């Protein structure tokens, strides 16, 4: 078997840990950075150069530059990770063993750009890091390897992402073993239908619909958005804050309309009515800082009976 030389195809700094790991195990050929050049990409490129890692920027829909780089680096496997750009198939197919994408969900479910957010938001307790072949359709290629991951009840998006990163060595070990044993990747089609998708997040997804949401759903929504998206949006009149942590409460709403503050005290905090249950707003951020529910309410002069919209 040829010595494995891997190129990482990415568009952001979130791939640094994978790059570092491949360099550590002496299998990194270089890094291709795709997409419109911005500060994040420039810093990533600078960081890689300083670590003596070969790096090449690639604009969208341009094949020659990445193919030339892959060829000159004598790369035989491509790994796409944290890449928001579509990789042209000729580029993906250039390495001898082709290219795989590492996707943070148990495919076929949660195809799309924001799988971590949507898995937490939907209250999933099990996830997976999936390696699949690149095809013309996003996240639909045959699966090469999969590592199951447990999602804890308090896991935020960053926590789940860290757990995904930690499962990379085991996943890659499976892939390396396939190449070593069979001389090629062992692929299987994705089983079943894609019932849940992971669309790119919009501001609308962060809004709290007090009349519809259950306590469990809201806790998950807030956790999914913490910290990158500022949890969920808390609105009262024209003013806004970010709800970063919430917990189900056993307090009766006494038929108070959803969104109404039903309890406020230093001991029990800030508790709000939902349709049939109640929820404690634990941590809230606004221009004043990051505060617990009670302090936030006090700073904003809120009291029981007032209503979030």
């Amino acid at each position, binding site marked *: 078997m040829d010595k494995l030389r891997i190129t990482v195809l990415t568009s952001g700094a979130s791939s640094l840990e994978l790059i570092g790991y491949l360099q550590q195990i002496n299998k990194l050929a270089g890094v291709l950075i795709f997409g419109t050049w911005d500060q994040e990409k420039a810093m990533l490129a600078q960081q890689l150069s300083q670590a003596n890692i070969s790096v090449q920027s690639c604009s969208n829909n341009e094949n020659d530059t990445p193919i030339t780089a892959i060829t000159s680096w004598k790369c035989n496997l491509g790994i796409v990770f944290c890449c928001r750009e579509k990789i042209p198939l000729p580029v993906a197919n250039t390495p001898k063993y082709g290219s795989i994408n590492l996707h943070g969900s148990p495919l076929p479910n949660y195809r799309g750009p924001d799988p971590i957010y949507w898995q937490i938001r939907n209250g999933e307790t099990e996830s997976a890091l999936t390696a699949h072949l690149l095809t013309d359709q996003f996240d639909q290629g045959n699966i090469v390897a999969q590592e199951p991951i447990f999602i804890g009840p308090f896991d935020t998006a960053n926590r789940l992402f860290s757990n995904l990163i930690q499962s990379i060595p085991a996943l890659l070990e499976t892939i390396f073993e396939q190449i070593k044993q069979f001389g090629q990747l062992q692929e299987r089609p994705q089983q079943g239908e894609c019932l849940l998708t992971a669309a790119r997040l919009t501001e609308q997804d962060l809004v709290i619909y007090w009349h519809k949401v259950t306590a469990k759903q809201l806790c998950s929504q807030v956790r999914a958005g913490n910290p990158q998206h500022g949890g969920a949006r808390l609105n*009262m009149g024209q003013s806004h804050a970010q709800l970063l942590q919430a917990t189900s409460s056993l307090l009766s709403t006494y038929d108070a309309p959803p969104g109404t503050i039903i309890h*406020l005290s*230093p001991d029990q905090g800030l508790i709000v009515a939902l349709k049939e249950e109640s929820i404690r707003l634990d941590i809230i951020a606004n221009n004043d800082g990051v505060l617990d529910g009670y302090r936030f309410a006090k700073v904003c002069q809120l009291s029981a009976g007032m209503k979030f919209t």
Partner: protein
Amino acid sequence: MSLKTLSPMTTFADPKLKDICNQNLRKQLNNLLNQLPENELQQALQNSFNTLVAQILSDKLPHTQLVDLFADAYENLLASYDKAELTESEKMTSYINATGLVMSVENAVHTFQDIYRVQAFLRGIHQALAEKKDSEAVYIVYPACGPCAPLLLPLISYYASRDIDRQRLKITLIDIQPGAVKALNKLISDLDIADYIHEVLCCDVMDFQPNYKIDVLVMEALQHGFTREGHLAFARHLVPFLSEDAIMLPEKITVTASLNIGQREYVDQWANQERSHSSLVDQDIQNERSVLGEVFSLSLDKLHKLTIIPLGDGMELVECNQVQIPKGIENINKTSLLLSVTATTFGNEQIKEYDSGITHPLCDMSVCIDFVPKAAEPDDLLVKSGDWLKFYYKLSGTPGFLPTVA
């Protein structure tokens, strides 16, 4: 932008009284507290209460004079409250329970700023007690009285200074907030009126089961539009405990529905006023209102005749009146439903619209007349000119009126 609550455009409280709450004055007050001995503070409190009550019982005072008297009494009241040394939890806890909002003690203290409300009750109670002058003992109950029982205790302080009815009046003060009871006990001590107090109870009014008949029921547990607090639930609960000739104050509360353009009613009308009061309303703007009629009234007599509709889970509805939305009103689709409370505490003592926080008209934005809102809300009620609106009153954690199309 940080989350802040909206302040009302006008306020029932005179700016001078509101200023007393600000931090600077609090600091000055603290300095004062540190200088004055306890007995001098008590004397100052008693004197200010007695002067206030003597003046308002003798005559209806000009506004500025009334404000000065209240300001003096309020400062001394705050001094007593501060000396009660409530914990953060005792001061700031607020919540909704089965009958409505339980306001924080810190907020409840400020009821004393609502001078026309306090005046109408003090004058009313004084007259009501005069009607009981032949009774050997008069049991007075004041539920949900807050940390100062402001509608009654100034009058009792005045009586004490003149040794009036010392053994005859037997007052029960009730509040669910432990902090309120702690402050009340301090205030009773500072006013030296313990002889008048039968008991101070820390409990839910709904759990109060007296072993005596109530002769005078003093109660004010409502916010504007007769909403949010448990006034009606408390009144229903206490009816079986009233004596045959009991007096309930207010004697009558009336809620009237009308239509007006919000901008005209709440903004234009008060643009050149620094406070609101029934004597300051703009008659032209009042004439722009379409009065729909009385939605509900509460008196002892009515209390015995309420039609209750149980809805399960402890929630009940009280059947109220129906009113018709007139036809042919220009720009009716720009008007909002206003629910206005007026209260007769006793005899001729009234709290009119805009005199008090409780008599500010409440704008019910859920009723959409001849228009469909761009951003629909779950509670929206779409109605047309000519429709009849039938009202129900919700007895729940958020008491208030439920308009329906008849």
